């Protein structure tokens, strides 16, 4: 199990050359967090695939946390970074540092940190709460009420994470909206300039 995760990490390290590459710009930071989420998800999946441990992770919120790390932590965050990089180029908006448009740099940073906070507050409680829930479910002397209370606490904390993820997605939407607005403003300005351009009249006879 540990060997598989180590192999994955070594592969990533060899591909990147140096972990500090992931701090170079905001797009790579998105990728860095996404890779971290991916490695965590793989490790947690490996843990739950071991039969005696699966008794403590199955039928709990644990798989939900792992799915969240895979879908939002890995796929969505990678896509966010890529979209921030590609969309300005598609819309002919100049990239401030060769990576991201200046108009959305702050929003992208905010998006990243809110998404990280959201992931920590959702996947964390689901995984940790799931293990506690599994331990209680496997203890027949523990009343089901105690399992229920753990569940409710997990759901309450995860709701904070859900709100952070909502805010992160809102930042992303705002960022995209700003880029689209910028694109149409530029087109409108060009059209206006063209429409109101002074047509040279020299040589034209009345």
């Amino acid at each position, binding site marked *: 199990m540990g060997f598989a995760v180590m192999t994955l990490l070594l592969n990533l390290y060899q591909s990147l050359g140096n972990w500090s590459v992931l701090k170079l710009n905001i797009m790579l930071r998105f990728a860095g967090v996404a890779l971290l989420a991916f490695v965590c998800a793989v490790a947690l999946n490996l843990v739950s695939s071991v039969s005696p441990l699966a008794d403590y992770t199955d*039928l*709990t919120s644990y*798989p*939900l946390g792992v799915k969240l790390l895979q879908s939002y932590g890995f796929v969505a965050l990678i896509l966010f970074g890529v979209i921030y990089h590609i969309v300005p180029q598609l819309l002919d908006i100049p990239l401030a540092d060769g990576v991201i448009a200046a108009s959305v740099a702050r929003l992208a940073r905010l998006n990243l940190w809110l998404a990280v906070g959201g992931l920590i507050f959702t996947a964390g409680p689901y995984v940790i709460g799931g293990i506690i*829930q599994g331990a209680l479910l*496997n203890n*027949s002397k523990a009343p089901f009420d105690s*399992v*229920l209370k753990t*569940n409710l606490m997990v759901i309450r904390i995860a709701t904070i994470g859900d709100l952070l993820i909502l805010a992160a997605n809102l930042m992303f939407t705002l960022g995209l909206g700003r880029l689209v607005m910028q694109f149409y403003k530029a087109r409108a300005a060009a059209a206006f300039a063209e429409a109101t351009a002074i047509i040279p009249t020299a040589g034209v006879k009345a």
Partner: protein
Amino acid sequence: MNQGPIIFLAAFLALAASWFGMVLMPQGQVGQLQTTNTVGPVPTAYPIGMPGMARQGLEVYRAQGCAYCHSQQVRQSGTVCDVELTEIGTNQPAVIDALKKTVPGFNPQSANQLLTDLPKRITTGITKSEADAEVRALRAGGAKADVWIVPVGPDIARGYGKRQTVAEDFLYNPSVALGSDRIGPDLANIGGRNGDPNWHLRHLYAPRSEVKGSPMPPYRYLFEKRRITHSISPDALAFRAEAGVPDGYEIVPTQDARALAAYLTSLRVDAPLYSAPFSVPPPPPEPSTNAPAGGTNATPAAAGTTNQPAK
């Protein structure tokens, strides 16, 4: 260097391995399942198809998303054996000797207490070979004893089912709602635990009136709230005060609510199977005559006799 064929081969092998493991092997294991007989003292066909109302209820169960909070899979960690002494026979000292040899910690002083009120489980939680050895020793002493197979595990101890869930349980289900989380209790054997459809209907309408502190959301839209005009409808449910039904109103379940309750009461994991065995007590002996049990229309003098013609 062109590595396309190698990449294609690797991807093909990965997908083929997944298909083999996740499609072909399960198909080989459970694809040919058919109705079988239970392994109890009275073999009966298992499973049988759901009645129509319960089948409709399964669709309601799916539509309402019950599987998000409830599982339908009883887990079992293993099986242990108990030894039940049914008759002591005529050679009591031999039986006590056998018990001394086989039952750890057996106290001969308390033998008389142990050997009264038979049948009784005299040893519990032992392995099959230990139980077989004990039964052989007791039978050699002239007693009658049986080995009882008892499934164990946290789910069994909680009463979620008498044995683990197996593929046969879902043979005639058009869709399987196994569930993946237990925010609420497991429902695999809810019909066996509580077969009262009215309780389920009341629980669906006002969960906290039936289970204190239940976090289950009320499904009030599956019920009609009617003002009582002349008399109470025969279909109206009788609620406790905690359910919060206002005076002058009655609550009548819709077809969906009835179907859901029928589905829930149909859920049972209590048939001993070859793949998931457990011991069940033999049925009570048939009456020796075909006279109805209890009172009859016959005269007191004739009651208790057979169906021979009266003289």
